[in-house]
Structures are given as C-alpha cells and as structure tokens.
C-alpha cells in the first residue's frame, strides 16, 4: 500500500524535497547544539531549563490525543459522517506523536543514553510513563489506520480482530495527555503548573486545537485532491473545537479566580508575569495577548452559524484557534512556570535561532510523515470512489 505514496506530481515531490531540506537544516542545528553545548544555542538557563521543545511535546501530544474526537464518535456511537475522515485523524495522530517524541529527544543532553529509560525502568518518573504511553499510542494509531485503509482498498469491512485495538486506542488517547499533564501537575513549588485542573485543561486545549487542525487539513485535501472528507464531518469537528475552546477559556477564568481571590502570591505571580508583566519583565505579555485575541477570533467565527458554515471563515477561525493554543500551551505555559524561580527571581526565556531551527526540523519530519501517510490514504479513497456508507467520496 505504501507504494501509493511514491506516485505523485512534481509539486508533491517538490513539497517533500523542501521538507527534507528543512529536516537536514534541523539536524545540522541539533549537531551544532551538541558541539557547542546548549548554553549559546538554546536560550535556556539554569532557571528556565525547559522551553520551546517541551512546549512542542505538550502541544502535539494534545493534537495526537484529539484523534479520539473522530475515532470515538465513529466507532462507539456509530457516527457515520466520520467514516471518511477517521483514518486521516489517526494518521495525524501518528505524525503528532512523532513530533512529540522527537521534541523530547532533542532536549536530551546525552542522546546516546536515552535507552537507559528502558534499561533502568523507573515507574515513579512521569517521563518513563510518557515514553510508554506515547510509543504505544503511536503503534495503535498506525495499526488501526493501516488495517482499516487496507480493508477499504479491498472493498471489505475492517477485520473483527481490530476492534479491541480500536477500543484500546480510544481509552489510551486521553491517557497520553493526562500523563503529559502529570509532568507538570505534581511538582511542589511550581504553583502555576500544580493544579488538579491541569489534565482536564490540557484535554480541552487538545480537543480545540486538534480538530481545528484537522479541519484545515481537510480544506487542503479538498484543494489538492479529488477526495472529499465530507462537509457534515467538518461542521461536526467545528462544533467540537468550539465547545472545547469555550471550556479552555472557562478554565483560564477559574485559574484567575483561585489566584486572585485567594491573593496567594505563588498563584498570582505567574499570571501577572503572563498578562501584565512582573517587576518589569514583560516578554510573555504580547504572546499571551496575541493568544487571547486569536482565541476570541476563533470563538466568534466558530460560534456564529453563518461564519461556521462558510468554508473560508471557518478556515480562518480554525487557524486562529490552532495558533492561539500553540502560543499559549506550546510556548508560554512551559517557560512561565519557572517564574518566579526558587529564589523568587525572574529569568526570561527567548529561544535562540538555533533552537527554532531544531524545532523546524522536527516539524518537518512530522509534516513529512503525515504527507506520506495521507497521500496513501487519499489514493486509496480516490480509487474506492464510494465510502463505507456507500456515499460518493470523490468529487
């Protein structure tokens, strides 16, 4: 089936070549970091030892988990509109897990020793569990997507033995993001992170950003191929993203209430640092307000029926939601958790350009994995002409 990803237009190959070029640049930047040390190449410090890459891990685990928003309605509730798009969602999860795992790998000071995590399994460490749940989720989504697509190619229903794996993937999806939240939510002294709300808040942002990305991808697929993911499916995804976004904004409000009504300094300081600046440190303020403004744009465009139903405004709204949550959870959340530090001091974080290149390389790997898998899926669907429900899926 993979050979279907190897047949394409010049544009397709050109796109892959550009991605490969970015991957090479990313690898070179990563090698440079290891040659010079991360001191001059990362922007990180003893006060802010985690930054952009751990933000990417956090954000993209969410994107991966959000595949459950198409898999669950389709398989558990028999919501047939998602039958065409489910495989795309699963392959998006595969690519997002690849980005997450590479992001966390890229921060390792001793990458050659990473296998120690398996050699010396340490169940009290959340990173150990993160490695387990992410690699399992990667395998599950690849398996489910691949087998269902093979069946579709042969004009057959998916084999029965796959069912347990599909159910496994469904309950595994929230668990991968809970584990990510537990990286933060169990650290004494990190007041901004240590909230029981963290896991559900992460799920809310995941289910807003993930479906928003899937909608944008569906629009691109409609443009570049004859496969039609289905307008009803897209509208349902928009509703899911809208409600999840509303929950996310509600949770932000809850954090503000707890911090400022209690007047607890540890809780207030980080929020002040993020939204108005603290002791003259205002680096995060424009980022967080940009995120807030984008969230508002997304909220309005997806809440108003007219703009939600119109493809162009829906796409703008989804892009706004995606980047709003990326700025917040993928960037500001991690670095601001270190403010103030153990000595009640503030250290700002600005990623070095070398760090940005490494992240671009990681993104490019993810886009490449998704492009290859998606190309294969589209080719199968274009040949099948009719979806599992007997509806025409090719324009």
């Amino acid at each position, binding site marked *: 089936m993979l050979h279907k990803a190897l047949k394409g237009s010049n544009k397709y190959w050109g796109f892959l070549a550009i991605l490969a070029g970015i991957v090479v640049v990313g690898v070179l930047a990563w090698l440079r970091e290891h040659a010079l040390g991360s001191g001059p190449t990362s922007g990180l410090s*003893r006060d802010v030892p985690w930054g952009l890459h751990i933000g990417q891990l956090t954000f993209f685990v969410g994107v991966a988990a959000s595949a459950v928003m198409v898999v669950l309605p389709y398989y558990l509730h028999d919501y047939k509109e998602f039958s065409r798009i489910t495989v795309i969602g699963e392959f998006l999860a595969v690519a997002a897990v690849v980005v997450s795992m590479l992001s966390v790998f890229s921060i390792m000071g*001793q990458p050659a020793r990473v296998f120690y995590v398996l050699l010396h399994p340490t169940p009290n460490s959340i990173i150990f569990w993160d490695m387990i749940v992410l690699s399992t989720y990667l395998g599950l989504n690849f398996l489910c997507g691949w087998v269902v697509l093979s069946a579709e190619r042969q004009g057959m229903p998916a084999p029965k033995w796959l069912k347990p794996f599909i159910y496994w993937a469904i309950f595994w999806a929230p668990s991968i993001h809970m584990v990510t939240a537990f990286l933060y939510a169990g650290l004494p002294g990190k007041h901004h992170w240590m909230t029981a709300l963290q896991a559900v808040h992460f799920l809310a942002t995941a289910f807003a950003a993930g479906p928003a990305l899937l909608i944008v991808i569906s629009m691109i697929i409609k443009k570049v191929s004859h496969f039609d993911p289905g307008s009803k499916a897209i509208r349902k995804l928009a509703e899911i993203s809208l409600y999840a976004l509303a929950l996310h904004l509600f949770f932000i409000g809850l954090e503000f209430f707890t911090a400022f009504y209690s007047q607890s300094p540890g809780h207030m300081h980080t929020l002040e640092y993020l939204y108005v600046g603290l002791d003259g440190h205002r680096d995060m303020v424009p980022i967080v307000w940009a995120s807030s403004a984008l969230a508002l744009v997304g909220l309005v465009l997806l809440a108003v029926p007219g703009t939600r139903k119109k493809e162009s405004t829906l796409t703008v709204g989804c892009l706004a939601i995606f980047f709003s949550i990326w700025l917040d959870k993928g960037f500001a959340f991690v670095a601001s958790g270190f403010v103030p530090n*153990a000595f009640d001091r503030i250290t700002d974080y600005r990623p070095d350009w070398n760090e940005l290149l490494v992240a671009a390389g990681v993104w490019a790997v993810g886009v490449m994995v998704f492009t290859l898998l998606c190309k294969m899926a589209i080719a199968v669907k274009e040949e099948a002409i009719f979806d599992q429900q007997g509806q025409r899926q090719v324009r």
Partner: protein
Amino acid sequence: MPESRTPFSMSRGIPEQGAPASQAGQGGPLPSGKQPAPTAAQESGVGTDRRHFLKLVGAAAVAGAGGIASLGVLQEVKASQVLAEATGPGKRWALVIDVHKIATQEDYQAIIDACHRFHNVPVIAEPKHQVKWIWTEDYSHTFPGLASPYAPPELQSKPFLVLCNHCDNPPCVRVCPVKATFKREDGIVMQDMHRCIGCKFCMVACPYGARSYNWLPPRDFLPQINPDFPPRTTGVVEKCTLCYEQLAQGLPPLCVEASKGALVFGDLNDPGSPVRAAIASHYTIRRATDLGTEPHIFYIV
C-alpha cells in the same frame, strides 16, 4: 557523650581536623595527597574504586527501593557491606550553618572554593549557565515568603550559603527517569553523572534551584583539573553530593572542613551528635519547609 563508632565523630573537632584540607581549598595545591594513589582508570576521569563504590551504592538503592532485579539481588550483600563500612548503619546526615560565624567575604569564598576546586566545578561568568554546588544568596531570596523587612539588619545584609538540601522526600529523585539521582540510606541525595541522560526534569522539579546543567563544555572552564574527582561532560546535571567521597574515608565534607566551625556536620539519628546539639540549642530555619520535601540543611539565624 562523644562516642567514636566511626571516625566520623571527629567532625566535632572540625577546625583542627580539617586544617590541611581547608588550606588546600584556599588556593593551595589540590588535596590529592589525602587520597590513595590514583589508579590507571583515572585516565577516563573515574577512579576504579569510586566507580565500583558508586555502582554498588546504586545497586543497593535499587534493591532498597523494592525493584529487586536479579542483578540487585546478586550484589545486595556486597553493596550493603560497602555501605556499612563507608557510612555506618542507621545514619542520617545533616548540615547546620551558623550564619553568624562566617564573617568576611573571604570566609565564604574559602568554603565555596574548597568544594568547587576539588569537585572540578567549572568557573563560568554567565549567570544563566553557571554550575554551582554551593554558593551564596541574600536572606530575602534564600527564604522568600519568610523574610520580613523588619528583621535584624545584620540578617538582611548577610549572605546565606545555599546548596542541595538532601531532602528526605526529594522531588528530583521522584522524577528522574533513569535513577541517575537517588537517595542513599544515610540521606544523601546522590547524582550519577555517568547515568544522567540530560533531560533536566530534576532541575525542573527541585524547589531549591540546587541543580546545575552543563550548558557548556565544563573542561573549557576549569583553570586546573583535580585528577581525584571526575570532571563532567556537556549535557549532564550535577550538584552537591555531600562529599560522599570524603565520608567514605571518614572525613567531613570539604565545605565543613573549610568553614572554621561555622558549618556543623553530623548524624541526626545520633542524639549526641554536634548537629543535634546545634539544633537543640539554637533556633534554626530551613528553606521552603511547606513543600513536604523535608530539607536537611539547617540555618542558625
């Protein structure tokens, strides 16, 4: 009152006993003379004995933690023997810092140098990338939330020595995915720089900012290398290990030796120990006790 179960009780007479080492710490030749003759393996930066010791201690920690792997069982007996010989059973090391006894900036520097020079801690100017095992902070930043503007002026202007708190319930140990940092039975929170994968989770988890990552190649920032302690490589985390190598020889930590009696070291489980006496006779405070970490560095204010 003084019982001499191990050579450790000697730490009571700190100024006298520690004199040779503190001289070395103040810029003189490195105290290599105290050590057994260096072995061939020190080419790679690790003494065979120390590596062997560290490995056994690690195995004992694994076994103690309940993860009794077959390897752990094989080495358990030997490991516990080594531990018993090195540190004695039932000990709980702690450090009491009497801030009033450290007078001048030179006194502070002597303590810091004694540690940093022996342990090959790189000298880095950029604060963001510094490696520090023991250093000074002012009162209000050492004890945020505790410091009052009406506290005695002497206290407010006084530098406080800060270092790893060797917690009873260390968050760094909880989060480490490879057991590179682990707690010994005698309370020392150890760091195995050869096991560390450089994920920095321990730095994120430590609520005392006591851990340092090698953001830069450390050898480039060492004016001289002490052959008796392994220099580190880029990309690993390090911190104070309470001079486990000194303790194994029955000597107090180097900072204690260099402190002219201002730092008191000993076994909290021993009612007759100098640390117990110091804590019983003075009002002491510890950093961020509300986090449940049970820090074991006490400050006499």
